[in-house]
């Protein structure tokens, strides 16, 4: 096979052993790699027992996968997945890390961690050889400190090459906080899904990988080289503004212009603070521009710092989602404030989106007197960086009110509703356990549609939105293909180009219909696992919905009064189920499974009827 090796490296942390697992080419052709392959492997391994798998037990596999396009297509993303402690489904999270390249240079398409270490450990893979080493000297660390110390540890402990990339967790992951991310390169995170907690449950602090070989051979190297060069040039030109302004541009564009930015727990979606824009960030916080990941012609990142209370806070940009969720969503409209909170989230190993969301939830509850000063221990105020920083730390260390908030917005709302005898779900801006990304739907000017989040198999994930037509770049099928390629969204060209690329790497000769069938197949299988759910929560057709707040009119801005309409959502829902070949409850039909070659999973449907 071309473009992939056809094998994964599986490590049993409990037994301390590792082995190579063969994956037939047919599987790659049906699921690609990354998110798709992970979904297939997990469905195949657990089937109906999925319901009883506790995501925070070491029995939950943690998969780091590449795909057929990894290393050949501009940019890099490593897919991180398992059973998500947030949604009880498979979320294909991604993080930009050269671990993806090193894995492929080691002769493997991915690494699967099973079981767990008794004591804090790190996994070191050198050219396919696995070592499980003691991580007690770095347990508890995060951010720059962790990076520096781990670099030294790698050098001393295993004589690692200085170019040995790694992914890691911060204290939040160690404490199995459900909003914890798998981190890379200081400011990158595989946030959606909360896999930082899964890694922490395995007591794995970091995974470092070094490969000395080349990538697998491709089907048409010359043609691919030409495509590569032209793709690089095309992407670079189109994405010039991202290089100059970073995605922080969104703080103004999405906030002021599109009016779809979370402000104070989504109670508003508009602002006009000129300083809270890319220019404000550039003038106040950037120290290095540009910054790119492996093979990337965009370079959307910049290095930012802010000095606050005698400490230096360092992060990337911050990127739009972080600036929004740890900025405007918390009433913080100063670039320095957003950098402080973003840097803190990086250091603690928290997903800025999920954590910013639950923090917004908490501040609103406090404001409304539902959470009291006694319960929190201190005052919670919009825009007050000091108390917000304290709250974030409490979440990462599961201290005080942080204990319940560490469960993520959905579960925190459930727990607090029970405790207080009042329904708090209207303050929870999440879908199926996943906080909604910082792009709202009410103004109608941003890209998400009324069903984007409601029908996504990844809940509130703004990078995997559902839409029509399904066989187009408007649909979740497209995003699932990107997450399985594994391709960075900011370096994509269109579907025809990606298909051409895929065919030249693998030699499969797929057409566009077959290309989108891969996407349909992946999300259909994800849908089944999503509906099976368990053990502590599961979803049904009533959860195919937007957060209640999105039906409330916007109170401010140029689209004041705008809101989603229930009838419109219900109509689009029916249409979408039909398009996907799902029944009126959104359950995939047997016929759909057959058409997509998923017959072996038909018995799982019985659990849903």
């Amino acid at each position, binding site marked *: 096979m071309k473009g992939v090796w056809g094998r994964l490296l599986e490590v049993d942390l409990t037994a301390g052993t590792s082995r190579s697992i063969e994956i037939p080419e047919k599987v790659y052709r049906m699921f690609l790699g990354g998110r798709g392959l992970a979904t297939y492997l997990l469905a195949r391994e657990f089937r109906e027992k999925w319901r009883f798998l506790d995501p925070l037990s070491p029995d939950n596999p943690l998969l780091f996968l590449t795909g057929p396009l990894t290393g050949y297509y501009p940019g890099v993303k490593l897919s991180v997945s398992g059973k998500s402690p947030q949604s009880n489904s498979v979320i294909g999270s991604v993080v930009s890390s050269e671990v993806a390249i090193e894995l492929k240079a080691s002769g493997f398409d991915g690494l699967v961690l099973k079981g767990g270490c008794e004591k804090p450990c790190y996994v070191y893979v050198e050219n396919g050889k696995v070592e499980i080493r003691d991580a007690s000297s770095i347990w508890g660390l995060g951010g720059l400190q962790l990076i520096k110390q781990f670099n030294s540890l790698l050098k001393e402990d295993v004589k690692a090459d200085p170019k040995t990339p790694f992914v890691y967790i911060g204290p939040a992951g160690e404490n199995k906080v459900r909003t914890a991310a798998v981190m890379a*390169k*200081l400011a990158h995170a595989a946030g959606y899904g909360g896999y930082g907690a899964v890694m922490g449950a395995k007591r794995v602090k970091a995974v470092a990988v070094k490969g000395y*070989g080349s990538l697998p051979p491709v089907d048409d190297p010359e043609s691919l080289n030409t495509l590569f060069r032209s793709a690089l040039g095309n992407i*670079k030109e189109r994405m010039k503004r991202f290089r100059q302004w970073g995605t922080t541009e969104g703080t103004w564009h999405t906030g002021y212009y599109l009016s779809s930015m979370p402000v104070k727990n989504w109670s508003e979606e508009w602002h006009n603070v000129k300083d809270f824009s890319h220019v404000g960030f550039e003038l106040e916080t950037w*120290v290095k521009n540009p*910054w790119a990941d492996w093979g*990337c012609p965009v*370079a959307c990142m910049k290095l930012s710092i802010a*000095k606050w209370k005698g400490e230096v806070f360092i992060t990337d940009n911050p990127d739009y989602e972080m600036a929004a969720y740890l900025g405007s969503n918390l009433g913080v409209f100063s670039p320095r404030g957003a950098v402080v909170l973003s840097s803190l989230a990086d250091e603690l190993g928290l997903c800025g989106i999920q954590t910013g969301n639950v923090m917004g939830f908490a501040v609103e509850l406090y404001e409304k007197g539902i959470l009291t000063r006694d319960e929190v221990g201190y005052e919670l105020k919009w825009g007050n960086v000091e108390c917000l920083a304290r709250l974030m730390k409490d979440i990462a260390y599961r201290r005080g009110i942080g204990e319940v908030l560490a469960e993520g917005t959905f579960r925190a709302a459930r727990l607090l509703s029970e405790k207080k005898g009042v329904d708090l779900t209207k303050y929870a801006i999440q879908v199926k356990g996943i906080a909604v990304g910082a792009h709202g739907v009410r103004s109608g000017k941003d890209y998400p549609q009324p069903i984007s989040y409601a029908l996504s198999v990844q809940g509130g994930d703004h990078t995997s939105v559902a839409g029509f037509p399904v066989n187009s770049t408007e649909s979740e099928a497209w995003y699932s293909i990107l997450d399985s390629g594994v391709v960075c969204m900011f370096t994509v060209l269109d579907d025809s180009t990606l298909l051409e690329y895929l065919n030249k790497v693998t030699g499969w000769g797929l057409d566009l219909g077959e290309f989108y069938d891969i996407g349909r197949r992946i999300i259909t299988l994800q849908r089944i696992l999503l509906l099976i759910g368990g053990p502590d929560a599961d979803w049904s057709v009533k959860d195919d919905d937007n957060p209640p707040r999105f039906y409330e009119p916007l109170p401010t801005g140029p689209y004041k009064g705008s809101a989603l309409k229930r009838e419109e959502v219900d109509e689009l829902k029916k249409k979408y189920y039909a398009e996907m070949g799902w029944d009126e409850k959104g359950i995939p039909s047997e016929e759909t499974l057959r058409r997509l070659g998923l017959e072996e999973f038909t018995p799982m449907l019985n659990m849903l009827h």
Partner: protein
Amino acid sequence: MRDFSKCSSCKLCEIACSLKHEGMVWPEASRIRIYELIPGLPVISTCVQCDDYPCVSSCPFQALSTGEHGQVLVDENKCTLCGTCVYACPGKIPRIVRGKQSVIICDLCNGEPECVKICGEMGYHALQLVNKPDGEIVKNYLISPEDASFKLLAKAIGEE
């Protein structure tokens, strides 16, 4: 000549170099290496074409020589992978790579380095081929990646 502040850490130079010399994407076999010990603060590392070419004179098998552009050339038939040149080089730039039968050193792609080209095409312009200045000035680039990284970090965060 290299500009650390312009380098984005994209490593397209490594990719281009390996594609040119090895015909495939093989980052380990790149003659130019970008060390990103501190994320966002890359260190560019490659041969500087020293005036006195200590690697060339150190080779017991006369496998190294210099070319018309001042580059170091490796004779694959004579190289025995003994590693002497690696230690003779003040920056340990020559590398022995698993899967290759001779040491690898930047050969300036016979006057039109691929790394410089792609870095320029991508608009970063962190690498430039210039006429070599006299004296040992270029050897100052051969600082260890660890040291260089920490200096860049101290500069970025304004440490005293």
